[in-house]
């Protein structure tokens, strides 16, 4: 009981947020730093990933190993990369920027490669028939054919990068994330609440900007000078490759002491449990919230506020939820489960609402025509008709949460992530490297498993469709 009352009194102490002008003014630096990190890293990521994506789209020689490299880079969580960069390049926004740039260059490279590989064959063959070189075909065929998709996916990644910028800040990458950790460690919870509010506003702002960029792609160009300046200002100035190489060499060979090997299964199990229960919690929250947010099930005066609430849940990344919940509920997997659950509930709630809205209208009308109540129509028609997409979204989320469970572990939620973070804090670099490699292998394994399951699910789904039509 006293646990609960403690948690409650901590929760209450977040309110009201500190909205004094002096504090808001003091936050301008961290906000600009986070924005600068994001834009700078994304400009760098686009510049790196566009040629890579085009090359892979043309299926140039050596495509397979490059694609494999991108996939494996992407399997390293952003927070882990940030820890790595902080060790190699020193604390500060420069390390955060580099971590973001590496992570999103790999992510974008993979996405762009997938996009370009699906380009229509006809126009490309016609271009090749003119005797054009590979690069010319890429510039005159691939890029124009897929430009709108490139911008759409690029802007989605941009939205993710804003949230990531706060995450990498939490482990020494500067910006708002560093500010948040500082305020939490000082038990200055009203200021932590302010920072979370600002984060929600920033994500909303970027959402808005990305929406307009998708409609008027030319405006993306205004980000380039801003990004170039951020790169110049935030680039780690005392970057010495010799020092970085030396530090990284010190992490090899990765070793785990015998005692650590013995606890490894427990740690892994804790991480898997966190992911599974976090996803289950998210699904349990997202089904009612998704129904309340679906325009065809709920009157607009209720659906719109529920949608806003889902956006807030989604705008706060798992790590930030984790930092807050560790402060409220104490260190341990419960905080991790809630951190994964709340953020995922925001994401799944929106996807579920869309699935409910995309249900075929006719069977719903047929049930309504029997005089059934709203709830009966929802349970007998809308819900069963949406069950396929719901399951696919849930599986995707489980895969994502497997990765995020190691990340929230690093900020005190237990499991292998926490072991990794403790090793880093104690400068046991070979041990840290060992945990890093194990996490990375687990994430790769889960990715492969989930891809396999989804392919089978999609196959089953298609089989049903074929039978019907």
């Amino acid at each position: 009981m006293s646990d609960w009352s403690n948690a409650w009194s901590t929760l209450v102490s977040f309110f009201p947020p500190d909205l004094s002008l002096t504090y808001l003014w003091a936050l301008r630096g961290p906000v600009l730093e986070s924005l600068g990190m994001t834009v700078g890293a994304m400009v760098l990521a686009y510049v790196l990933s566009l040629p890579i994506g085009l090359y892979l789209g043309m299926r140039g020689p050596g495509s397979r190993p490059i694609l494999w490299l991108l996939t494996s880079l992407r399997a390293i969580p952003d927070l882990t990369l940030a820890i790595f960069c902080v060790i190699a390049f020193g604390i500060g926004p420069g390390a955060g920027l580099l971590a973001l740039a590496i992570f999103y260059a790999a992510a974008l490279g993979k996405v762009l490669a997938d996009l370009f590989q699906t380009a229509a064959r006809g126009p490309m063959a016609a271009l090749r028939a003119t005797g054009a070189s590979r690069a010319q075909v890429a510039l005159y065929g691939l890029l124009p054919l897929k430009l709108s998709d490139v911008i759409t996916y690029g802007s989605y990644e941009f939205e993710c990068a804003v949230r990531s910028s706060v995450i990498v800040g939490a482990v020494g990458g500067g910006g708002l994330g560093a500010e948040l950790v500082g305020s939490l460690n000082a038990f200055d919870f009203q200021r932590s609440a302010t920072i979370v509010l600002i984060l929600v506003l920033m994500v909303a702002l970027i959402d808005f900007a990305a929406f307009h960029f998708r409609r008027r792609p030319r405006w993306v160009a205004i980000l380039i000078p801003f990004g170039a300046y951020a790169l110049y200002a935030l680039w780690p100035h005392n970057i010495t490759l010799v020092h970085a190489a030396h530090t990284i060499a010190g992490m090899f060979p990765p070793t785990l002491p015998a005692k650590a090997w013995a606890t490894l299964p427990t740690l892994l199990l804790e991480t898997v449990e966190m992911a599974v229960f976090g996803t289950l919690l998210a699904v349990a929250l997202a089904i009612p919230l998704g129904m309340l947010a679906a325009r065809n099930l709920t009157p607009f005066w209720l659906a719109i506020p529920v949608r806003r609430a889902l956006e807030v849940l989604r705008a706060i990344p798992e790590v930030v939820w984790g930092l807050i919940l560790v402060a409220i509920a104490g260190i341990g997997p419960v905080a991790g489960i809630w951190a994964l659950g709340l953020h995922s509930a925001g994401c799944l709630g929106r996807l579920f609402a869309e699935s409910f809205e995309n249900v075929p209208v006719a069977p719903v009308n047929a049930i309504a025509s029997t005089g059934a109540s709203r709830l009966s129509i929802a349970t007998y028609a809308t819900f069963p008709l949406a069950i396929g997409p719901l399951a696919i979204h849930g599986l995707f989320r489980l895969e994502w949460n497997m990765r995020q469970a190691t990340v929230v572990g690093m900020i005190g939620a237990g499991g292998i992530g926490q072991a990794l973070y403790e090793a880093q804090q104690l400068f046991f670099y070979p041990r840290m490297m060992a945990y890093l490699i194990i996490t990375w292998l687990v994430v790769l394994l889960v990715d492969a498993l989930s891809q396999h399951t989804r392919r089978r699910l999609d196959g089953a789904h298609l089989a049903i469709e074929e039978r019907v039509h």
Partner: protein
Amino acid sequence: MTTPLLQVEHLRVQPPGAERPILEDVSTVIRAGERVALVGPSGAGKTTLLRALNGSVRALSGRILFNGIQLDDRSSRILRQVRRGMAVIPQKHDLVENLKVYHNVMAGALGRWSNAHALRFLFWQTASELDEARHALDRVEMANKLHDSAGKLSGGQQQRVAIARALVQKPLLILADEPVASLDPRMARQVLELLCKLAEDDGVALLCTLHQPELAREYFPRTLEMRDGKLTTDSAGQAPVAPTRSAGEAPAWTPGNA
């Protein structure tokens, strides 16, 4: 058999933004237990009329009285009360394919079940409920498909399940939308015979839209004809709005002592 069950008065339907009304000044009366065919070329407004009767399409003006209740689609209580008495057999059957056949059949009972009852039946069915579903399926010769998944049935089988759903609803009026549109002539006769027999056995009124006037004459005592959103002919001789030719060549059924 002769009390008015459904009264339609000066019904006018025009969706917002449409240039002309889909239904214009439609008036008619259908009596309890009566079997009526609604014929006319496609685009005449037959389906819209059925949907308006059921409250699925909002009327611009006019009045619909069903079993003594005036339809008002702004009151969900009245709308549900009216719908409960009127079973719809949609043209494309519109089953919920991820559910079992018995769920789809017993969905006809949702109008009289409480929410708790409806939720319980999704997961746990009593023997008497399954018997009710089996009985309804038996009447459309589908009892052996009770436990099948609705998505696995052929089109014709799905139609029979939709008919069973209508029977479970225990309605006063069945609205059937083009039940034979996509069937070959032999199958079409079978389905119409089945529908008419079921309606007659239960004493339920039947309003059925059809493309083919000869099938209407053969199976239905009374035929309404629609053209460009207006009722043009009524074989029962009840004055339609704007008759364009002499009503009813062979009125097999007369209003009697109406």
